[in-house]
């Protein structure tokens, strides 16, 4: 009896006021909201840029374009995400005119989004190159322009192939959003670190944050498996290859 009472007591801090009318309980959920929001916005940025850059890397006619795309990938995947975050907050916002007033949420999403865009670009490129060469030729042979061939034939198939790696990128972006604590975005890690300092309830606080991360990861994998099922084409193996 006293054992359960004891455990119950240890979680009481959640209903305490942290000093400004906000309880730790409310703070925790707003922190979770920040984690999800940073991750979601960054993912949109990363997908948009990643698809574009990855596609451009496969356009062999334009040497300059594909070299630029390659440069983008190498630049953004060879610098740690934390350092990239600092670059956005303390370098780009300092020395690029007009960047000074940009909200920190936006800067964090740029940092995470650009970092992840390099990884998604690689997956898009690999996905496109995994398609049989004849698909592009068949599309062109029917009179599609390059752009139409990508739009109607190549990219829809690529998208289906790369759902599994995209799932892990989506999970990665949630995990990587944790670095935002270093620039005082009030997400889960910030919450955990500050609350454990203020309440000395480290284990409980970390446990709560960890569980929220796990729930987020499970939600993503559930969502992506639904997406994968809906995108599945009858008669086609999940590898996306046709009959040969």
């Amino acid at each position, binding site marked *: 009896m006293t054992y359960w009472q004891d455990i119950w007591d240890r979680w009481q801090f959640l209903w305490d006021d942290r000093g400004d009318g906000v309880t730790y309980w409310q703070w925790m959920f707003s922190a979770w909201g920040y984690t999800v929001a940073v991750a979601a916005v960054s993912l949109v940025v990363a997908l948009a840029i990643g698809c574009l850059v990855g596609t451009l890397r496969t356009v062999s006619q334009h040497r300059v374009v594909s070299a630029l795309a390659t440069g983008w990938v*190498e*630049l953004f*995947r*060879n*610098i*740690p*995400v*934390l*350092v*990239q975050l*600092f*670059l956005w907050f*303390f*370098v780009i916002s*300092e*020395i690029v*005119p007009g960047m000074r007033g940009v909200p920190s949420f936006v800067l964090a999403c740029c940092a995470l989004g650009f970092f992840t865009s390099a990884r998604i670009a690689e997956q898009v490129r690999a996905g496109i190159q995994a398609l049989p060469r004849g698909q592009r030729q068949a599309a062109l042979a029917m009179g599609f322009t390059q752009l139409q061939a990508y739009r109607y034939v190549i990219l829809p198939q690529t998208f289906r192939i790369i759902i599994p790696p995209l799932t892990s990128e989506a*999970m990665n972006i*949630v*995990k*990587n*959003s*944790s*670095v935002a*604590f*270093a620039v005082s975005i009030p997400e889960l*890690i910030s919450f*955990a*670190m500050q609350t*454990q300092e203020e309440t000395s309830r*480290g*284990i409980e606080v*970390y446990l709560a*944050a*960890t569980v929220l*991360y*796990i729930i987020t*990861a*499970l939600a993503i994998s559930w969502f992506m498996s639904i997406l994968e099922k809906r995108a599945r084409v009858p008669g086609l193996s999940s590898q996306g290859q046709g009959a040969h």
Partner: protein
Amino acid sequence: MPALDFSFYTWANISTYLLSGLYFSVSLTIAATIGGIALGTVIALMRLSGIKPLEYAALWYVNLLRSIPLVMVILWFFLLMPSAFYNLFPGDIGQKYRAEICALITFIIFEAAFFSEIVRAGIQSLPRGQTFAGQALGMTYAQNMRYIVLPQAMRNMLPVFLTQTIVLFQDTSLVYAIGAYDILKGFEIMGNTFGRRVETYIMAAVVYFIISFALSMLVKRLNEKIRILR
């Protein structure tokens, strides 16, 4: 826009502020790679052992660590590592380098989850015939793994290991969360000392980029070599 000034990066300042940090970042990377591969192999073997409790333990280990951020794991270990543990080290080393020791242990345990998945994929990608051939020669499971399967799998996995090492090297910057003295910390202290934050992060990015990019070129060369050998 303030003018950039990199003149404070003199050799004397670099060796004062940066070298020990760089040394720690690199040692942490190497130690975590070796330790992670060793522990990861054990976990992969557990996962493939066919013994249910071992299989589930390995599965949980991997899935748990892969679904939480490394920063969170670092914080957990820093919180839970008993003080007595640090006292095991001679003199005051344990207390003085708490964060660094904690980081090392965390990284080995965390990276093992990722390396074990690589090892598992490597073992499973070997043709089944190799295992059968070993068994046909009368080898035990352990002998088969030790002499037939692992040596082949490891050779195939070398480039993937190296790629993971590049990721690991970049991840070492996250020891920032517990204030361990790595290269990034070195840059930061130096930047604060000279009041030059902009140049600090530019140089930090350049150093990380050069090391990671050089390693990734190495992996590329290695991959091409391996392709030729096959």
